[in-house]
């Protein structure tokens, strides 16, 4: 196929050529950034929490009345006993926050008492000896808390946590040589150190904002039951297949213990699946929106190509007839239009690539999006070329079917 005559013909209808090329360029720029956003969000959504999420649910319990600290501590103990005695419940624990929760307590982690800048930031999960079991997180080294290590007091009365368990990612970050067990670190601002007695398997932080991505797997379990907050969160693991029953039984068992409590109708009792959906709703929303935009955009671009090429075919029926009369085969005509579209598409892709990189660079500086990888450009470019060829095929076929006799007719 000769390219020169095609280029010469393009010069005769510059506007249409430029419009299609520009449309392909813009589509490429937006679609590959949209695909990239989808990929980024989906990667985020699919990262593991470390928690065995099946059969797990959360009860947020607000206290009514001014319980004293010892009263609250006793009530929590009684509540947990009642929960664990339920036939449908495997284990239960009380925590201040949990992975994917979005809010909770994070604190600077330091290696020395007088260190001002943090070594890293980490979730602080106030836990007890049932926490790891309830969450379904295994210890990879060391030991669990013992019941008598658990302190129950308001945070402002806490002086130190002699022993802590850290997630394996945090352990590796602080002690790259893998000798974290038994070491001392500073997880409070009180100038007292804590000894690492256990290292847990992967455990995600409660922090869900993008600024905290670097700390996503930093977690410290401290042996404490926090009082004086006015509420407590129970995490409950149901026996396999008995999640529904457990979610029905648990609030009743708690109310039977004491009526002076509130479970908010909206989010008082939530399965962990609901927690997860809520944690990532922004990400799902973005991915869906970008998906819709990409599909509709590709459809519109294809439609635009069909429309303009049909117009060109209609405009050039006589020229096609002349070529056919002079011996061009149907295949020649078909490949003429296909090649023309391919050339415009390639031009659009060159411009579109620059645009896509420009948009990405702008998003990198303004929204902390990662750099666009070349494979997205490649995939989007190939998709657009294939789409263009597909769109042009029908009008090109119609062109190829123009009979040579056409040349003899006047319009």
């Amino acid at each position: 196929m000769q390219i020169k005559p095609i280029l010469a013909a393009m010069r005769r209808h510059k506007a249409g050529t430029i419009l299609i090329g520009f449309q392909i360029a813009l589509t490429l720029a937006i679609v590959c950034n949209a695909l990239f956003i989808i990929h980024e969000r989906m990667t985020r959504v699919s990262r593991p929490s470390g928690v065995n999420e099946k059969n797990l649910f959360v009860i947020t319990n607000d206290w009514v009345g001014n319980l004293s600290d010892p009263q609250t501590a006793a009530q929590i103990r009684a509540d947990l006993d009642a929960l664990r005695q339920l036939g449908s419940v495997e284990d239960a624990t009380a925590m201040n926050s949990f992975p994917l929760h979005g809010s909770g307590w994070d604190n600077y982690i330091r290696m020395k008492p007088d260190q001002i800048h943090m070594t890293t930031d980490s979730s602080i999960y106030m836990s007890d000896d049932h926490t790891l079991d309830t969450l379904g997180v295994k210890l990879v080294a060391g030991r669990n808390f013992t019941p008598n290590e658990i302190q129950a007091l308001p945070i402002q009365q806490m002086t130190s946590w002699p022993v802590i368990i850290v997630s394996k990612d945090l352990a590796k970050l602080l002690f790259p040589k893998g000798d974290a067990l038994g070491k001392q670190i500073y997880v409070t601002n009180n100038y007292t150190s804590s000894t690492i007695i256990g290292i847990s398997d992967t455990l995600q932080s409660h922090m869900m904002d993008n600024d905290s991505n670097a700390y996503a797997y930093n977690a410290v379990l401290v042996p404490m039951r926090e009082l004086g907050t006015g509420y407590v969160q129970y995490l409950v693991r149901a026996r396999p297949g008995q999640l529904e029953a457990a979610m029905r039984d648990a609030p009743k068992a708690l109310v039977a213990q004491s009526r002076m409590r509130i479970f908010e109708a909206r989010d008082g009792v939530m399965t962990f699946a609901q927690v997860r959906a809520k944690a990532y709703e922004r990400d799902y929303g973005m991915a869906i929106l970008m998906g819709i935009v990409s599909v509709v955009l590709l459809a519109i671009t294809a439609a635009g190509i069909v429309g303009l090429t049909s117009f060109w075919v209609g405009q050039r029926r006589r020229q096609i007839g002349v070529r056919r009369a002079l011996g061009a085969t149907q295949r020649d005509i078909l490949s003429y239009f296909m090649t023309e579209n391919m050339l415009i598409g390639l031009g659009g892709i060159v411009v579109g690539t620059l645009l896509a990189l420009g948009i990405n660079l702008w998003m990198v500086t303004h929204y902390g999006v990662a750099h666009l990888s070349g494979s997205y450009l490649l995939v989007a470019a190939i998709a657009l070329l294939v789409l263009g060829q597909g769109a042009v095929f029908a009008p090109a076929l119609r062109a190829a079917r123009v009979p040579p006799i056409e040349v003899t007719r006047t319009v």
Partner: protein
Amino acid sequence: MFAYYLQLGLRSLKRNPVLTALMVMAIAFGVAASMITWSVFRVVAGNPIPWKSSQLYNVQVDNRGPQYDNPPNEPPEALNYTDAAALMRAHKAPRQTLFYDIAPAVLPTRPNDLPSTANGYATNADFFSMFDVPFKYGSPWTSAEDDSHAAVAVIGNELNEKLFGGANSVGRDVTLDMHTYRIIGVTERWDPKPRYYDVYDGMQFSDDLPQVYIVFNRAIDLHVRMSGRNNCGGAPMHIDNDEQWLHRECAWIPFWVELPTRAAAQTYQEFLIAYSAEQQRAGRFGWAPNVRLRNVTEWLAYEKVVPSESRISLFVSIGFFVICLVNTIGLLLAKFMRRSSEIGVRRALGATRREVYAQFLMEAGTVGLAGGVLGLLLTIVGMQGVGLLFEPDVAQLAQVDLSLLATTLVVAVVATVVAAFYPTWRAAQVQPAWQLKSS
């Protein structure tokens, strides 16, 4: 002539049904996507109190020192009790307010109801006048109640419905965390979006409207629990008594002042610097004064209140619309040029270029209108699905209203007419002689 061209335009819609349908759909999708994302964006990026946003200032005072600043050189976003109380005492602004979030358990008034939790604020009298809180019954308390640490409360309309069936409850009692308060006022539903004054506690798009307001001084006396954010940075957390708890260098009290003029703001800024310098001399601050005074607009920008998701989706939708328009330019070009001979005949019969312009722009306008109407339907349908795309907090802000519908139509028509300029210009360039000859 206008009516005639309109008629011609409508008729030509039927002439190339496929081409026309493509254009109409492209415009409809483009305008609908833009309008849906815009409807969310206009709320999240909106000015919640336009008549006053340049007179309300958030106050920041660095009470922890530069080594703890995050981001660097920026003071904490709220005050601790020591500074908040000192600035209240100094009373250097015509109005000033301070508050912290509370979430007490509310006892029901009817025996069979269950207790519930209500969000709200422990604050002072100026809160209501500074933020223009609308009242349904009664009125806010005054500085006299602030000074006497009075056991009075203002409740929200929704809580009033729940407890008193919507009746005027002024003078009745409400029990919050086992303490009794006399109701002095009931607010109307009050929901500025974003909730600029309480961004510190992450309430900018919260749909939990504040339902209880109690006197700050009394709340401190009673140790009413704070339910909001408490940022202690690197400050030690351990305390031995309540006095220490109050004076910890943790940030938990947002502080706002109302300053009528720029000059007053300047004076207040100088006062803050002088206050910090005094704290430095007294040995409490080991660093030079570092204070900020930001008005509502500056504060919302500093706190990056607009979620990046709504910004990105707005930009993507606008890009999408631009592509749809480029597509429309191409298709209009095809549609118009196909009628070169018709144009030739009209020109030969005496139509001026101007008239050709008028006719084809009108035709484009009808395409735009058709796209706008379809886009309107898509927008309305799409708004039902906004909940899938944005968090419920944000999604429920997006409302279909008349202005949105009108904007959709206007944008569709104007954009299409603008897109039609080039194809129309080409149509008007058609040489009558050429066309007549080749026929």
